[in-house]
């Protein structure tokens, strides 16, 4: 309880700082994550709409299958925006200054996780809206839209932990940015774009272990399937576990880094 009391203030303060940074530089923070999925939605639905006749999609049409995956790409594209500032804070000594004010250095990251989750909300709205215009479906209405949004936000926070760890270890603002191609691999080796049945055996095997697959399947079920299904629950469990593990790992790395001076 005491830990909660002493952490809430710093977490909120760091969150507000992240928001200010994001608003100061809205391009990479808010709009960069929209571009790749938006282009994918337009290009893929225009070019590969007829794939439905070639590959059997569990949702019926390629568009209906593809749009939930594209929405989750918002969480991955431009991932870890705030990690560059974490590295800069470490490099400049500002992290030491912040660390001296708080009982638990982990609280200095939690506020940033919060911002990583919310900064993709405009992107989700844009890609969802565009996806619906290009043949996507949302039979579950607003509850479905909210559910897929929360899943994407959790994914964004979980994915950001990889960037934080890289930023903390290297204290170099450029290094986390080099991790961005990882998102492409994670997405393609999941069910974001095509069903596992259509994948080669090796990719199917990888997709079976890829947590992104569980989250995408849950997102798809939330949007066009059964909103209360086990698939959705599993997606939340995996995404939430990713956030918790990511926070724990990045917090441990930060604590270790700071104690070594």
């Amino acid at each position, binding site marked *: 309880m005491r830990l909660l009391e*002493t952490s809430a*203030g*710093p977490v*909120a*303060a*760091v969150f*507000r*700082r992240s928001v*200010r*940074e994001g608003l*100061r530089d809205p391009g990479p923070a808010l709009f960069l994550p929209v571009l790749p999925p938006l282009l994918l939605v337009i290009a893929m639905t225009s070019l590969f709409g007829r794939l439905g006749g070639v590959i059997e999609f569990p949702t019926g049409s390629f568009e209906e299958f593809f749009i939930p995956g594209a929405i989750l790409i918002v969480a991955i594209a431009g991932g870890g925006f705030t990690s560059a500032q974490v590295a800069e*804070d470490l490099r*400049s*000594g*500002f992290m*030491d*200054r*912040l*660390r*001296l*004010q*708080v*009982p638990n250095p982990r609280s200095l990251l939690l506020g940033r996780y919060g911002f990583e989750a919310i900064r993709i909300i405009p992107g989700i709205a844009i890609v969802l809206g565009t996806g619906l215009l290009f043949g996507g479906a949302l039979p579950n209405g607003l509850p479905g839209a909210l559910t897929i949004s929360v899943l994407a936000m959790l994914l964004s926070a979980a994915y950001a932990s990889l960037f934080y760890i890289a930023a903390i270890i290297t204290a170099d603002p450029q290094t986390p940015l080099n991790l961005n191609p990882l998102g492409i691999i994670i997405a393609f080796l999941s069910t974001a774009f095509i069903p596992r049945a259509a994948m080669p055996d090796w990719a199917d095997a990888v997709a079976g272990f890829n947590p992104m697959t569980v989250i995408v399947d849950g997102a798809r079920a939330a949007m066009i399937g059964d909103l209360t299904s086990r698939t959705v629950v599993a997606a939340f469990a995996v995404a939430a576990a990713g956030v918790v593990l990511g926070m724990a790992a990045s917090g441990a790395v930060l604590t270790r880094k*700071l*104690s*070594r*001076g």
Partner: protein
Amino acid sequence: MTTPAIEAHDLTKHFGDLVAVDHLSLSVARGEIFGLLGRNGSGKSTTVRMLTTLLRPTSGTATVAGYDVYTRPNDVRRSSGVTLQDPALDPNMSGREHLTLIGRLLLLGKRKAASRADELLVAFGLSGAADRRIGTYSGGMQRRLDIATALFSRPPVLFLDEPTTGLDPQSRRALWDEIHLLRAGGTTVLLTTQYLEEADQLADRIGVIDGGKLIAGGTPRELRAEHGLRTVTLPGEHHAPTVAAAVTTGPVTARDGLTTVEVRPDASLDEALAQIRSVIGSLDGVSVTSASLEDVFVHLTGRDINSAPARRNEGAAA
């Protein structure tokens, strides 16, 4: 007996094979300004980082405001303010945003944090620039903001790691005045410096650190008396060997129309003057020059303070 504000016993820090700080012991009384004087790489900053809990010592013990740095690090942090060697600021924030953030991290409410931020901005002459980006501040303004940050929670102990490095003489003097004011308000200050004049002007007591070891300590006057050579200058070039034969306090040289007799720290000046009188008959025109702190430093370390750091300390023990 009052507990010292800062106390360290055999504090040691290894970075791999490098011994950055080597069994350093010191004690700073409450309300005192203690200057840690040493070259770049002598272990000053590493000492500060250990005392402020930013770095875990390899061995030794230390307390700050009565709290153990190992077992009560949060209390140490609550009781002390720190400015590190480079101002630790985010150039994209304004001075007001920065101080308010610090207040919020310290669990102050929004209003209280803003009010304390305003108070410090006024106190440190930054209210006119409060809403400007810190990146546009001069070095002196950044340093003042850094110190204001360290003082946000009104800590009883303040660590200033090379607070005036990179400042112009005017800003340096202004900062000295502020440090004197802090001491007058009861704050204990441990400052590190490589400026002899700064240590002389500010510190009640000085510790000389070299190669990670504290090799001498005392008031500036005590250091001069214990470790400084005094020089007696006689008018005229006397025959040096003759004078040297009579004077036992230090070497004698004669050139450029003057004769100088050095008086070692452990020798008596009165004795030296008596011996000189016995050779030249009178002390008319004789002058005595006290050792400067620089002389003391050279005497103690064998090199001047601006010389390159000892190889063993390169890098890690800045």
